[in-house]
C-alpha cells in the first residue's frame, strides 16, 4: 500500500527555485507556462491497513514545517 505526501511552500512564501525554472523554461521556448512552484513528494510504503489519518499525523509532526509549508496526501495505486 502506498501513499504520496506532496509538500509545497505556502502561497505567501516566494519560491525562487520555481521562478528560476519558469525563466529557464521560457528561455528554452516553453511559452505555455504561467507559474511553477517546486515542492517535495514523499512516496511512502505503509503496512496494509494503515489509515490516511496516521499519515496526516506523520506529516504534521515530521514531514512538513507548517510555518512555511502545506501538504496533501494521496493514495497511490499505480
Amino acid at each position, binding site marked *: 500500500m502506498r501513499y504520496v505526501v506532496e509538500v509545497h511552500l505556502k502561497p505567501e512564501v*516566494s519560491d*525562487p*527555485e520555481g521562478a*528560476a*525554472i519558469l*525563466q*529557464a523554461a521560457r528561455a528554452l521556448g516553453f511559452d505555455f507556462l504561467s507559474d511553477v512552484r517546486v515542492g517535495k513528494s514523499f512516496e511512502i510504503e505503509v503496512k496494509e491497513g494503515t489509515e490516511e489519518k496516521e499519515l496526516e499525523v506523520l506529516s504534521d509532526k515530521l514531514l512538513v514545517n507548517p510555518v512555511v509549508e502545506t501538504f496533501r496526501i494521496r493514495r497511490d495505486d499505480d
Partner: protein
Amino acid sequence: MREAPVLQIPKRDTVPSEGTSKTFLQSLGLSEEEIERIRSLLGREPTETEWGIFSVMWSEHCSYKNTKRLLAALPTSGKDVLQGPGENAGVVAVDEEWAVAFKVESHNHPSFVEPYQGAATGVGGILRDIFTMGARPIALLDSLHFGSTENDVHSIRSRRIAEGVVRAIADYGNCVGIPTVAGETHFDRSYSGNPLVNVMAVGVVKRKDVARAVASEPGRKVLYYGNPTGRDGVHGATMASETFEVEDEDKRINVQVGDPFMEKKILEATLELVQAGLLEAVQDMGAAGLTCSSCEMAGRGNTGIRIHLNRIPLRAEGLTPYEIMLSESQERMLAVVKEENWESARRILEKWDLEAVDIGETTGDGWMRVWGNEEPETEVAAIPVRCLTTEAPVYLPRRAGKKSGAEVRPQPALSSEEGNDISGHLLRFLASENVSSRRPIYRQYDTMVGTRTVWKTVGGDAAVLRLDGTEKGLAVTIDSNARFARHDPFRASEYAVIEAARNIAAVGARPLAVTNCLNYGDPGNPERFEEIAAGVEGLGYACARIGTPVTGGNVSLYNETAGAAILPTTVVGMIGIMDDYRRTTSPALSGDDLWLLGTHSPSLAGSEYEHWSRGETSAALPEIDYDFERSLHAFMVEAVSKNLLRSAHDISAGGIFVAAVEMVLKGKRGLVWEKVPEDDDFALVEYLLGEGGAAMLIATAAEKRGTVEALARRWNLLIERVASIEGDRLVFGKQISFSLENLAAAWEGDLEKRIFLLAGKEEAAS
C-alpha cells in the same frame, strides 16, 4: 609483516564451476591472453564470481598495468616522507609530532554519466582515502576541466556538467564539514565529451597514529561498517578502464549515490577507532568495492582472507555473490580487528549509529576465499591473493615517439579593429571563461569550516591552513597546464609542477611534496601512450629538480568519448610548509611599490590569450630554469618569514595583465605601471598577456625597498620596480587606464551566467 606463504595451487576444482559463456567473458574487459592466463594460474575454469574478482583486480584502475613501469621512475622518497605510493594516501612529516596525509583522486567517467552524483561520490572517496590513514581531513581541493561554455554544439551539456559537478562538490564537502579551500577550473573543447573531476584531500595525523591498510596477522576478525551493499556501481572500476561510446545505456544504470551524512559518521567513527588503537588495518570499499579492499589488505600483509557473503548487509534483494563482490555502493568500510578489541570497536560504532558486522577473518594461507549468500553456504571463490595483486599483468605499451618539430604557426597579431580598441579587447579577454573570477564557484564551498583556513589566502595562489598544536602553516594548491600539452606533454607536466610550486612559494611556504592525477587517453593507442609516458617523465623530472617527492596519486586513462581524446592532463597537487601561518601573504595589493622578480620574457605563442583569440595555440612554452625556481622559493620563504612583503602573486594564465588585475581587485588599490613597451600594439599585447617568463610580482612598503633588493641579489634574482601602488585605477603606460569598477565588472560578472543555468535572485524579497 609475514613471509609470503608458499602456495600450492590445487589441481582439483575446489569450487563448483558455473560454466562461462562467451558474452559474459567479453563483458569483463579482459584480453584473450589475460583470460588464458587466469585459467592457467588457477589451473581450472574460474567461477563467475572469480572471473568478476579477476576482472576488477586486473583492470587498469586497480592494477595500474599500463602505467606501473612508468610510475616506478618517479622520485618518491625524501627525508620527510613517512608513506610513499602504495597506501590509501601518502604521508609526509611536518615536525616530530605531526604529519600530513594527502592524495588526489579522479571521478571523470562517473561525472560524465551523472555529474552531480559522480562528483559527489568522488569527494566521498578521496576523503575516505585520507581518514583511513588515521588522518582528520582538513581541506579539499578540486581541479575541474569542462568542455567550453562558448557557443558550440556541446556547450549546453558542458554547462550542465559544470553546474552539477560544482554543486555536488559543495553539497558533499560542506555537509561533511571539510572546507574546499582551493582549486582550478579550466574550459576547453576537448573535455566536452569527457570532463575531468579531480579532487584532492589533505588531512592531519599524529605520526604515532598513522593507520595502514595492511592485514599482517591471521586469525583477526574482518569488520564491515557503513552503508549496506546495493547493486550500484557494479563494474565501476572496469568502466573507468574503458573508453566511452556516445550512448552507453547499460552503464548508466549503475549510478552510485553519495551520502555525505553517512560519510561524516564513518569519518568520526573511524578516527575514534584508530585513536583508540582498535584497528589493525582499515581501508574503504572504493573502486572494486569489497574485492579490492579485502585482497589488497591481505596482499600487503602476505596473509589470506575469508569472507562470508551471507553476513553482508544488503540494500536490495537477490544480489548474487558476483554483484556483492563487485558492488561500489558508497560509504562502506572494511577493517581488521583483534577478537579482544571487537566489543570496544562495536561500542564506538554504535555511538555513531553504525552496526559492526563480522564478515569473516584473516588467515595465514595466502588465499582469498569467499562463501556465497545462497543456502546452503558454498564456496564461490578461492584464489591465491598474489594472483590478484603482485601477479596482475604489467605492460609497457608501444610509444609512437615524439612528434617531430611541433608546427609553429605565425604568432597572433591584433586585427586593426582590435588594435583600435585595445582596452575593450582586454576587458573581453578578462571576462572569458578561462580568465574570469572563480569566485562564483568557490563561494559555494565552505572554505572556513574547521577554522584553520587563513581567510585572505582563499581565492589566492595557494590556501594556507594553520596546523593545530603548532604555529606552522600548511600551504596547499592544485594545478595543471593542459593547454601546453597539445604540443608537449612533458613540458606541460613540468609547468604544472612549477606553477604549483610558485603558488606555494607565493604565500611564503616551502614546497614539500606532490600528489598527482594523470588524466590521459587510451594507452593502447601508441600516440596516446606517448603522451602518457612523456607526461609522467616530465612530472618526475620537475619533481626531482625542485626536490618534491611524489607520495601518491591516481591514474585515469581511457578519457575518450567516441574516439576523441582529451588534452593530456597532468594534475599536480602540492603541499608546502611554513613556520608561522600568521606571516603568510596574499595577492591582495597593498604597500607602495610593485616589483617584478625574475625575468619576464613573455611569449604569446602557447598563451591563454592565443588560445582565446585564435581558438588554438601554436607552441608550448619555453624551457624552465630550475635554478631560478629554487632561488625564487628560497627568496619567498625568507622574505615572507621576515615580513618584508605586503602581497605577492605569480604570473600565470593571462600574463602580467591578469595577475595585476587580480591584485588590484583583491586589494582594492590602484596601480600605475610605468614602463610598458608602446612602440606597437603587438609589443604591448605581448608584454601584457604573454606567458612563459620566470617571474613573480611582489609588493612592498617603501621603507623595505633596500632590504628587498638586497635579498633578491643574495638569491641571484633580478628585481625591478615596475609600478607604484596608488590611486584607484589600473594604469599601463599612456594608453591603458581602467577604473577598478570596470575591471571588476568584466572579471567578476561572467562565470556565474555561463555555468549556472538556474539563477535565483539573490537580493529577492527584503
